[in-house]
């Protein structure tokens, strides 16, 4: 009975910890926005040849979760504009984009895509501060795990919004979610994962469409 009570306490503590995700969000508007019917927003993960690559699953999440505006995902847009948005060649800033727009074929192709806003995504997910241990044994017809492991994870987005009509940066957003995850080995492993990536993604997605649709200053 005493052991059962202790086990329940551990389960309760774990559930409490895994449910505990803290988030922060920050938005800076640099220009007015607005979007016409038929215009699109391309959401692209930042990559470069120095080895930086935005977390692909977080970029995909943002493309899927952004609603109310027509979104073009990373790979579709890169294919449409091939070869100009390949990691080695993609414009790093608006000046480089303006230089590319002097090429008639590039400008014509970009106009044809009807992409009005380019959303550059820098995203990273980290796991650190691992504590505890777990051991699992497997025998003939039987297997079990015992122990407790816990770690901290966080997911951060930084997003830059370029207006391709005005050729300005319309704004930027930053979100961060952090929380504790755990695996409890009570004969079977019970994962209790803090949904930091999803929460961070939802925060940006919700505010991104609002930012683009709403004119004026926030």
């Amino acid at each position, binding site marked *: 009975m005493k052991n059962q009570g202790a086990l329940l306490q551990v389960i309760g503590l774990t559930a409490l910890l895994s449910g505990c995700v803290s988030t922060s969000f920050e938005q800076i508007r640099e220009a007015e926005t607005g979007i016409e019917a038929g215009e699109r927003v391309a959401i692209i993960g930042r990559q470069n040849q120095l080895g930086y690559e935005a977390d692909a699953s977080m970029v995909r999440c943002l493309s899927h979760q952004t609603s109310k505006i027509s979104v073009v995902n990373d790979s579709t847009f*890169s294919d449409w504009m*091939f*070869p*100009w948005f*390949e990691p080695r*060649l993609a414009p790093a800033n608006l000046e480089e984009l303006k230089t590319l727009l002097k090429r008639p*074929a*590039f400008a014509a192709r970009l106009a044809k895509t009807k992409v009005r806003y380019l959303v550059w995504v820098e995203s990273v997910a980290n796991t650190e501060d691992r504590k505890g241990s777990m051991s699992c044994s497997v025998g003939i017809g039987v297997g079990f795990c015992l122990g407790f492991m816990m770690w901290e994870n966080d997911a951060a987005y930084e997003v830059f919004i370029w207006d391709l009509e005005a050729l300005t940066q319309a704004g930027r957003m930053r979100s961060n979610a952090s929380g504790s995850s755990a695996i409890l080995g009570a004969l079977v492993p019970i994962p209790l994962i803090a949904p930091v990536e999803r929460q961070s993604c939802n925060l940006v997605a919700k505010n991104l469409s609002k930012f683009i649709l709403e004119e004026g200053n926030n």
Partner: protein
Amino acid sequence: MQPSMLRALFGCLLIWLAGCQQTTLTLQTRVPEVRSIESLPLSVALVYDESIKNYTHEESFPEGRNWLIRVGNNQERLMTETFTALFDRLLILDNAESADGIDLTIIPKLKDFQFATPLQTGRDQFETWLQYSIELLDAEGSLLNEWPLSAYGSVTTTDTGRADRFLGLAINRALRDAMAQLLVDLPNQPEIKKSLIR
């Protein structure tokens, strides 16, 4: 021979075979249709070296996996698509003999192919490096320049159980990087610029 001895020998054979797993990769890289590049008003002869047509890479790793990667064929098709988009007129020739009305002859060669799996790098990444040499010859067949082109592709994954799929993706990315550089950087080579002025 005793049946128990036979069983033991058979067991050893199975372990030996499992330790020498051969994986063959035949690539099917797709590069998008090029619509955002102006083609150059040049007539170019393209000669494919054996390293472009039939390149096969074979490598064995200490953990017992043998890789056989067929890069040719697929690479030849990609280059034909890329050079067709880049030049107004393209002739594919068997050798670098002079042809009528040609401004330049281009002979691409694959000099080096390297790859790494997470077991080698210690990171969750499959990586590929390609090193090309692009030979540019004048209308008479004299070598003007050898332009070195390095391409890279990587895929981040924790799923190492599907190594062939992720290595294939990393190679596809490297090939796509190579084609993108051909489209953007080849027109900036001095020999191409001179041919455009003539």
